[in-house]
């Protein structure tokens, strides 16, 4: 066996570039796949840790239906009735321009199931020598993850001060605290969050005996049981689509990498056929030979896998900050910017490398197993063989296209969306060689001179060898065009929509009741304020989905500017009554609501009179008249104020507000800054997509380069007769270069319609399923021009080296083709 392996491996010494191609393909495929997995795993890990903090699925809570704060006298009442509950107060503070989630707990009564109650916390709390004491009593302590401390530019030495001017309890680094979270005693939280005597929920200890007193009798406050999984599930549900997008990209890159692996393996196999036949003739059984090939392959896959996983780690490290920012900005999910990976991730990466290598080589391995020891005569001329293969490919491509159509017509859900996408991409890739062949055939029939006739015919013959690289390029280009069209379309739509939607010049937010009233009455008296647009809001759940209900005042600012996707003609008047509401597109999509449908939110049963786009908001939204909201939700809180004023007065009015009310950055923002902020978050998301896009393009370029390099070795017998017939090496090199560029150009041109199809699928199927909104379809021809140019450039660079080699090749190497002693 060792001997056979040695014989097999000797091939690579003679063809080192093939070995490089194989390893590069495996490395890239594994790297991009595992890089994306690392990003996803890291984010999910952060969500789960956050959920586990207070006990995860096992621990139920008591909350108000709308999630509002309630008086802590409920705690006392319940305890007295024998309920084993633990008080929690949650909220947000802003420090150094970023927001931190504050969780106030009572460590003495905290259920043991909560992560925060594990001994680790105990030691951390008592590190200071005074045990629980310093955590529990003034001036308190706050526990924070070390990474968060660094991220927020905080230290243990200087006190941290919030943007509202409150000094946080002394920071202590704690290992088991999730990034972006500040844990402190509930009393400290009440003071920090300026919610004295308030709680956001009571945790029910799952390990304690339940009280016999029913909840309604134990407390006068209308609390309800909810499970934590509902809350953490939200984050998982909301971010799922984001992660699915990343996964899809990872899979695509994996596929493109496998194309390289496939072409390298197939080529090596073809070149080793005589060697394999000799081995068979020498008495090696087909099984032994196949096992030897398999062993060789798995060894290479292991090497490629290890380098791939290492590279994937680097990619993930590079992209993690952007991913963390966009997850935070889009979904409020706190994700640690630094990467910590489990051994299972490493082994999964290696496994993927093996599976990929096996998939890419199964054809060659099967052929090796069933190969007759004697070479049989060619049954078909190259053209017939090619034609047969092309017919097969066209057939499968058509079948996949049919499958995509059937899935579109009858399927449902995000996974189906991605299945359609995959079917389209693979169908496109398979249809590429037949289409190129068609183009080349047309070219051939129009060829005038003998050289151009040869050019077209020879391009067709070379198609088989190059088609894998060209398919990889097609996939990369189509994905780029598809994603680019979606992203630019989103950017354009989002920007237009923001322009329309943000009518007020100044926005005030995060105000409590007292400040809200004070600000409103102060603004009312200002001459420079033209319109005041106050809102109130309350968070509810409809069929399990988190929904924010916003109350707005009737004003022409809305009537004139608020863009609707679908609306009844009398919507604005209808909304004045308490019978009608407007819903966001994603809520309508999620709950399959249409105009004139009625929904029930508690006792309220309003009718839908308008559906509006609410791009970028993962949660559902309902807009109704401000008085209606106040009527149905007595505890609805202030929801911000939009202030309209003349452009010249913006600066002075903001200055006056700042002086009068001590407004901080997060509480007051002008329209321009708000737009910039919203756009900024999206740019981060797009930065990740763009990076992955560039990487897939790079992979396609490498695939092209590798194929050309390996093929150029086999080109001499094709070129030598032409050279002998009177074509210079220079001319031949130009023809070869021209051929590669022509093929790349045709591929790029075919990538445009496929890319648009992909874009359509992303916009009309995947986006709608994932986010609940459907974008208008915009096309951006400048993208195509750019990508076609890029494809040509890639082909040019990839074929530069073989071309230069051919230009100056020694005549004797060409002459050797004709000699019998080769």
């Amino acid at each position, binding site marked *: 066996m060792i001997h056979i392996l040695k014989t097999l491996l000797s091939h690579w010494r003679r063809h080192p570039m093939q070995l490089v191609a194989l390893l590069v393909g495996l490395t890239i495929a594994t790297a991009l796949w595992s890089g994306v997995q690392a990003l996803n795993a890291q984010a999910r890990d952060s969500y789960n840790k956050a959920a586990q903090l207070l006990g995860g699925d096992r621990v139920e809570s008591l909350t108000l239906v709308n999630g509002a704060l309630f008086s802590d006298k409920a705690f006392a009442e319940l305890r007295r009735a024998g309920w084993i509950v633990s008080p929690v107060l949650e909220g947000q503070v802003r420090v150094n321009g970023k927001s931190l989630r504050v969780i106030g707990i009572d460590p003495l009564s905290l259920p043991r199931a909560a992560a925060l109650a594990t001994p680790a916390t105990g030691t951390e709390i008592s590190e200071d020598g005074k045990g629980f004491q310093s955590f529990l009593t003034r001036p308190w302590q706050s526990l924070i993850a070390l990474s968060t401390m660094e991220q927020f530019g905080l230290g243990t030495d200087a006190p941290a001060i919030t943007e509202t001017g409150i000094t946080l309890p002394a920071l202590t680094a704690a290992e088991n605290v999730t990034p972006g979270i500040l844990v402190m005693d509930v009393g400290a939280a009440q003071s920090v969050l300026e919610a004295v005597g308030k709680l956001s929920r009571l945790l029910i200890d799952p390990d304690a005996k339940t009280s016999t007193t029913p909840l309604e009798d134990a407390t006068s406050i209308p609390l309800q049981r909810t499970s934590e999984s509902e809350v953490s599930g939200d984050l998982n549900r909301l971010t799922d689509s984001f992660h699915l997008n990343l996964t899809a990209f990872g899979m695509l890159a994996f596929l493109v990498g496998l194309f390289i692996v496939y072409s390298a393996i197939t080529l090596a196999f073809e070149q080793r056929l005589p060697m394999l036949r000799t081995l068979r003739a020498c008495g090696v059984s087909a099984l032994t030979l196949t096992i030897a090939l398999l062993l060789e392959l798995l060894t290479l896959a292991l090497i490629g896998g290890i380098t791939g996983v290492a590279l994937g780690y680097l990619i993930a490290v590079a992209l993690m900050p952007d991913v963390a920012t966009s997850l935070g900005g889009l979904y409020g999910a706190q994700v640690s910017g630094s990467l910590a990976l489990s051994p299972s991730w490493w082994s999964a990466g290696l496994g993927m490398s093996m599976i990929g290598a096996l998939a890419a080589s199964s054809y060659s391995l099967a052929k090796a197993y069933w190969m007759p020891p004697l070479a049989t005569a060619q049954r078909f001329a190259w053209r017939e063989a090619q034609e047969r293969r092309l017919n097969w490919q066209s057939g499968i491509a058509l079948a996949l296209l049919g499958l995509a159509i059937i899935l579109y017509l009858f399927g449902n859900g995000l996974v189906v969306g991605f299945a359609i996408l995959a079917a389209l991409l693979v169908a496109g890739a398979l249809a590429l060689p037949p289409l190129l062949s068609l183009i080349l055939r047309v070219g051939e029939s129009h060829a005038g001179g003998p050289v151009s006739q*040869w050019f077209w015919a020879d391009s067709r013959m070379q198609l088989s060898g190059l088609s894998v690289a060209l398919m990889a390029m097609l996939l990369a280009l189509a994905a780029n065009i598809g994603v680019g069209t979606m992203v630019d379309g989103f950017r354009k739509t989002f920007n237009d929509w923001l322009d329309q939607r943000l009518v007020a010049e100044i926005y005030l937010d995060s105000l409590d009741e007292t400040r809200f009233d004070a600000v409103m009455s102060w603004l009312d008296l200002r001459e420079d304020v033209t319109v005041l647009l106050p809102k109130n809001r309350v968070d509810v759940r409809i069929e399990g989905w988190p929904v924010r209900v916003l109350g707005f005042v009737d004003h022409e600012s809305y009537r004139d500017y608020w863009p609707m996707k679908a609306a009844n003609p009398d919507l604005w008047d209808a909304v004045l009554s308490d019978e009608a509401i407007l819903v966001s597109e994603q809520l309508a999509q999620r709950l399959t609501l249409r105009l004139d449908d009625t929904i029930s939110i508690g006792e309220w049963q309003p009718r839908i009179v308008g559906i509006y786009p609410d791009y970028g908001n993962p949660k559902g939204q309902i807009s109704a008249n401000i008085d209606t909201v106040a009527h149905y939700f007595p505890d609805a809180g202030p929801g911000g104020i939009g202030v309209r004023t003349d452009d010249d007065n913006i600066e002075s009015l903001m200055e006056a507000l700042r002086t009068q009310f001590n407004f901080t950055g997060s509480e007051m923002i002008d329209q321009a800054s708000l737009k910039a902020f919203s756009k900024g978050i999206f740019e981060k998301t797009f930065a990740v997509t763009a990076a992955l896009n560039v990487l897939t393009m790079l992979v396609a370029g490498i695939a092209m380069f590798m194929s050309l390099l390996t093929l150029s070795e086999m080109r001499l017998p094709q070129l030598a007769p032409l050279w002998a017939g*009177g074509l210079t090496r*220079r001319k031949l090199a130009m023809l070869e270069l021209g051929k590669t560029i022509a093929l790349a150009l045709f591929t790029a041109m075919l990538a445009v319609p496929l890319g648009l199809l992909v874009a359509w699928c992303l916009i009309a199927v995947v986006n709608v399923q994932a986010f609940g909104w459907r974008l208008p379809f915009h096309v951006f021809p400048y993208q195509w021009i750019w990508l076609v140019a890029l494809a040509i450039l890639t082909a040019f660079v990839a074929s530069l080296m073989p071309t230069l080699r051919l230009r100056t090749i020694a005549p004797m190497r060409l002459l050797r*083709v*004709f000699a019998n002693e080769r």
Partner: protein
Amino acid sequence: MLIVEDLHKTYSTPQGPLPVLRGANLTLGDGETLAMMGDSGSGKSTLLHLVAGLDAADAGTIRLGETDIAALDDAARALLRRNRIGVVFQQFNLIASLTVQANLAFQAKLAGRYDESWQSELTERLGLSDVGARYPEQLSGGQQQRVAIGRALAARPELLLTDEPTGNLDVETGEAVMQLTLDLVARTGCTLLMVTHSASIAGMLARQVRLDRGRLV
């Protein structure tokens, strides 16, 4: 008229310089046919390659009519091959991606001397009428060599150079192909320089020379 004077060619090999041609001289009148024989490795192919302008000589002159081939640059030599010389080798003469028909017409079209009736006469005489639409890989060795010869002659070259064109064929086929070639050469009036190691084939040509120790005797 082909005149080769004092031709020198030395290859550099890992074992040191290897002089192959050491002052070879040769004169060949228009329409003459000459067989060049010699031991294996004596430099026959080398001489042929230099005459065809496929490689550059170290010293000496090769005149075809008024042109000194040895003094031409790469592009000019390519042009010479294209327009005035036909070459046929032992193997791999044909363009794999083109049909037999296209292969036959290639050189003539390249030289701008494509002649429909000559083309069909050649095809007919070479017995290739039935396989015109096939590809080289589908032909037998003898058929392939006939295509190569037809391709060279279709362009009506001044000089036809062949390097053991029958080396891969059995004796009978080889002689048949040879006879055909000579008939067609006579028909076009071109000059023929053929390398061969078969005495019987050499005997079919008007003159014979031997290459020995770098010189022609």
